[in-house]
C-alpha cells in the first residue's frame, strides 16, 4: 500500500525548485525543436515534434496507441537519438553530449517503464538501491534512504522479496521507488497505471503529485483520460507524429 498522505514527506526529498507560481520564469528541463524519428528505413514515427518541459512542471502525454508516446519518452530519457531536429536536456544539446555526460544526465532522470524492468535476481531493496549503487554511493550512505522510501511506498515488509514473487502493484511501486530514490530532477513514466487496479493507480498519482510538489518535473505518458482528469496538469497529445497542447477532443 502506498502509505502517502499530502502532509507526509520523505527525508531528503526537500523541494529543490520554487513552487508552481514561480515556474514560468524557470528554464526548460527538456526542449524539443522539430524533432523527427524513424526506425531504420521505416516511416517517421515522430514528425517535427516541438515541446518543452519547464522545470517543476507536471505534464501528461497522451494519444492513441501507436501514436509515438513511448518513442517520445525514449528520446526524453536519451535511450534513442533523433533522426533530425534538436533536443536540449538540462540546457545541453543532446547530440553534443559525450558518453560520460550522457550517463550523468541519465542519473538525473528517473524512469518508470510499462514493464517495470526490475532485475529478477535482486531483492526489492537491491533494485531500489540500484541508481545509488551505480552512482558510487556506499551502502552505509544510502541504506536509511532506501529503507525509508520503501516504507513510504508501502514495501517496507517486502524488502527481501524478489520481483517474481511481487504482485503487479508491488512491482510498479518498486519500479517507482527505484526511479525516485536518487532524487531525480525529471521523472518519466510510461503508462504507470496500466498494470494496476484503479485504486492503486490513484495512489500512484498522488505519489507523483507529492513528488512534483517537492520540485521534481514529471512527464507521464498515458491514454487513461480518467487519470488526466484527476489532476489539473498540462496535457500534450501526439497525433500523426506531431505534438499538440491540450486534451484530445
Amino acid at each position, binding site marked *: 500500500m502506498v502509505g502517502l498522505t499530502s502532509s507526509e514527506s520523505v527525508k531528503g526529498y526537500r523541494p529543490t525548485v520554487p513552487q508552481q507560481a514561480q515556474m514560468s520564469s524557470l528554464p526548460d528541463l527538456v526542449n524539443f525543436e522539430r524533432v523527427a524519428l524513424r526506425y531504420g528505413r521505416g516511416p517517421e514515427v515522430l514528425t517535427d515534434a516541438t515541446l518543452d518541459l519547464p522545470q517543476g512542471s507536471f505534464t501528461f502525454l497522451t494519444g492513441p496507441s501507436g501514436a509515438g508516446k513511448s518513442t517520445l519518452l525514449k528520446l526524453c530519457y536519451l535511450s534513442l537519438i533523433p533522426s533530425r531536429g534538436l533536443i536540449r536536456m538540462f540546457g545541453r544539446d543532446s547530440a553534443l553530449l559525450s558518453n560520460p555526460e550522457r*550517463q*550523468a544526465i541519465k542519473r538525473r532522470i528517473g524512469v518508470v517503464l510499462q514493464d517495470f524492468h526490475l*532485475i529478477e*535476481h535482486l*531483492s526489492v531493496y537491491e533494485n531500489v538501491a540500484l541508481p545509488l549503487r551505480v552512482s558510487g554511493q556506499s551502502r552505509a550512505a544510502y*541504506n536509511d534512504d532506501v529503507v525509508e522510501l520503501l516504507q513510504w511506498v508501502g514495501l517496507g515488509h517486502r524488502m527481501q522479496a524478489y520481483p517474481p514473487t511481487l504482485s503487479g502493484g508491488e512491482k510498479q511501486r518498486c519500479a517507482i521507488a527505484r526511479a525516485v530514490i536518487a532524487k531525480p530532477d525529471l521523472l518519466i513514466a510510461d503508462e504507470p497505471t496500466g498494470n494496476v487496479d484503479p485504486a492503486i493507480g490513484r495512489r500512484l498519482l498522488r505519489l507523483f503529485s507529492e513528488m512534483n510538489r517537492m520540485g521534481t518535473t514529471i512527464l507521464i505518458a498515458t491514454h487513461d483520460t480518467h487519470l488526466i482528469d484527476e489532476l489539473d496538469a498540462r496535457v500534450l497529445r501526439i497525433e500523426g507524429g506531431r505534438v499538440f497542447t491540450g486534451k484530445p477532443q
Partner: protein
Amino acid sequence: MNIVTGQIPPEAPLLPGKLRNVRALWVVLIIMALLAGFALLFARGSLRLSGEWQTQLSDTLTVQVMLDDASVWEQQTKLARDTLGPVFPGADIEIISEAEARALIKPWLGNAALPENLPVPGLLNLTGQNLNVKTAQAALDAAGLSANIDDNSRYADQLRGTARRLVFIGLSTLFLILLAGLSVNIFATRAGMTAQKEIIRVLVQVGASDKFIAKLFIGQAFRRGAIGAAIGLALAALMWLCLSILGDWGGFGWPNFGAGAVDILWLLGLGAVFAVICALAAGVTATRQLAFERKRL
C-alpha cells in the same frame, strides 16, 4: 519512521552468479588451465633434465692413451692413471679393461676377430668436480704420454640445443593455450552480455557508465578464471606428482621436494596470469560491445 535495518539482505552481485550453460564454460576453462599447467611443467621439466644431464657430462672426462705397441697397454694406462691422480685429487679414475676397450672398438671394425697385436687405446674415465682438459693434457704431455681427452662438450652442446627446442615447444604450447583462453573469454563475455542484456539495459538506464558495467564483467571473468585455474592447475600438479612418483622420469618429473615447490610457485604465477587474461578479455570485450551497441542506436 521505523528503520528496520535488521531486515536488509546482504549486497548481491549485480550480475547473476548462476547462468545457463555455464558448466560447459567451467569445463573448458579447467581443461585449458590443466593443459597450460602441463605445458609449463613440460618446459620446466625439460630445462631441469637438460641441466641434470649437462652437470653429469661436465663432471666426466674420457682419456684415450694412444699406443704404438699393444704390449705396453697396461704399463702406459697405469702411468696415465698415476699421472692424473695427483692432478685431480678428489676425482675417481677408472681404467677400462683392455677387453672392454676392444669391445668398444669392435662395432667400428666389423665382426671379424681383432688381431692380438692391435694397439687398442688405453681408456680411463675420470669422474669428479673441476676436471679440466688443459690441465690433464699438460700433465699427460709432461709424462710423455700421447693422449686424446674428451670432455663431452659435443654432447653437452647437442643437449643444450635439444633442451632449448623442448622448452620452446612447451612455452609455445603454453602461449597458444593462453591465446585460446583469451578467445574463449571473449566469446563467453559476448554471450554473457547477450544473455544479460536486460540487466545491462536497466544499468544503462539508471546511469551506469561503460566502465561500471565493464567492471562487473571483469570481476565475473576474473573469479571464473581464478577458480578454473586453481582447479585445472591443481589437477596438473597432482598428475605430475603421480608421474614423478610412479614413473622413472629423472629430472623431468619432480626428483625432490625443492623442484616440486619451485614448480608449484610457477603454477601459482600461471594461475594469476590465467585469471588476469580472463579479466582482460572480458574488460576489453565488454567496453567494445557497449560502445558498439551505443553506436547502433
